[in-house]
């Protein structure tokens, strides 16, 4: 990916990336890059920096022209948003992703894992499902309860995936809420997800909300 590039800016992001990819990580990557490139001989000149939020146009425009100037590549340690916004902001320099952007998830510090919890589908059902998302956490995004593959509270896909509908069922029982246990959710409108084409929202205006699903009883 970075073949032939010698003057690389490694740019961290102090924003919401998990695990952290700030200045310290950028400096570590710079050192590693210099070692790897140095072994091939020739001059190597890498620098490290960080941005408080790479997805913020104003921040990128104000503080970083000097850092980017004269570089033959930027390795962004932010999520894919930073990679894309940097490319827009500094079209003269190629920007490369320093990591894969994997999912919107949450962290369990003690057990040491991150788990997907949201697909940004644009029509939130968490209010009805006891705060557990079936779109992101059921492997089939089912909206009317578990499939036949749920066993011992686990998903048929892998035993380390808890069945989201087992969790939802237990939570709704605990809350004594039965409407989603007996009601039928009709086919949903996926336009608010990825299926209405590329999503766009004007700032300070409400998202053009699709019709709310009604629970039939």
């Amino acid at each position, binding site marked *: 990916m970075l073949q032939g590039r010698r003057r690389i800016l490694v740019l961290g992001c102090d924003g919401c990336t998990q695990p952290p990819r700030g200045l310290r990580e950028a400096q570590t990557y710079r050192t590693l890059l210099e070692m790897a490139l140095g072994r091939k001989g020739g001059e190597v000149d890498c620098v490290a920096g960080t941005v408080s939020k790479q997805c913020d146009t104003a921040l990128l425009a104000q503080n970083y022209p000097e850092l980017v100037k004269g570089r033959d590549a930027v390795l962004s340690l932010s999520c894919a948003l930073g990679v894309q916004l940097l490319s827009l902001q500094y079209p003269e320099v190629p920007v490369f992703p320093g990591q894969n952007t994997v999912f919107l998830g949450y962290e369990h510090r003690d057990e040491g894992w991150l788990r997907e919890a949201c697909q940004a589908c644009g029509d939130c059902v968490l209010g009805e499902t006891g705060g557990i998302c079936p779109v992101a956490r059921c*492997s*089939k*995004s*089912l*909206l*009317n*309860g*578990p*499939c*036949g*593959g*749920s*066993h*011992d*509270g686990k998903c*048929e*896909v892998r035993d380390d995936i808890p*069945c989201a*509908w*087992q969790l939802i*069922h*237990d939570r709704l029982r605990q809350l004594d809420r039965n409407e989603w*246990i*007996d009601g*039928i*959710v*009709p*086919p949903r409108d*996926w336009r608010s997800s990825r299926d209405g084409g590329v999503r766009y929202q004007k700032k300070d205006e409400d998202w053009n909300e699709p019709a709310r699903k009604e629970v*039939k009883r």
Partner: protein
Amino acid sequence: MKAGSNLEKVLSSGGFAVTAEIGPPKGADGEHMRHWARELKGKADAFNVTDNQTAVVRLSSMAGSIILLQEGVEPVMQMVCRDRNRIAMQSDVLGASALGIKNLLCLTGDHQTLGNLPGAKNVFDVDSIQELLLFKTMRDEGKILGADALTKAPQLFLGAAENPFGTPHEFRVHRLAKKIKAGADFIQSQVIYDIDRFERFMEDVRSRHLDGKVHILGGVTPLKSAKVAKYMKNKVAGIIMPDSVISRMEKASDPKAEGIRICIETVKQLREMKGVHGVHVMAIAWEEKVPEIVEGAGLLPRPVV
């Protein structure tokens, strides 16, 4: 009559129905379907044609169903939510109905990571309950749910699956009720080895009077060996395999014959169970045993209705 299929006639006349399964081949081998249609004709009221079962690519369920029709054998066309969105699903059902397919089984579908193309993208635009709702709306209201009227409504006898052994156990009867509300006329259950747990499920069904609203067919699969039984216990999601069944298979001098005996016993027990209106024999890759099982359970000849 909703579709006037043979299966619907048997069930609505109060008969104890028998369905079986003819699994499509992994190739463009229509002769495979024709062969089993000829071999098994008259041994069951209708035959399920599976839809890329376990997410393995096979000859399509619609093509397989048409071949059965050409041989004078009634199909139950299966359709999973994994591979089609609501546009393709409804289009295929209109086509299937126009070609004479009357029984349709609506299923979620095994996840694609369990099959032979684990890198495939899935669809799951609708779930199996919403799938029933789409087809019921097409049949009863002559329209696409949320859209335009059809020039001709499909005539369908709608089926669904239920797994009394899946978790959460106490939710399963609620899910059954949802499927009935969404349009299921008949239910084919997951394979039953734990007859006691199935009986408890049927108690729940009867206490909610659901047995009067839907025809439940109990699922059975003959075991070939103790090894298969253990595999099912440990590896197949949603099956409960009691140790007593494994032990019977282990002790048997002729395990295959024992597997058939256990299967026939289960069918007989299901026949006595209140609210159970039939059996679904899934002799997976062992279709030649269907006549022996159906005959052994005293369910031949099949009624002509």
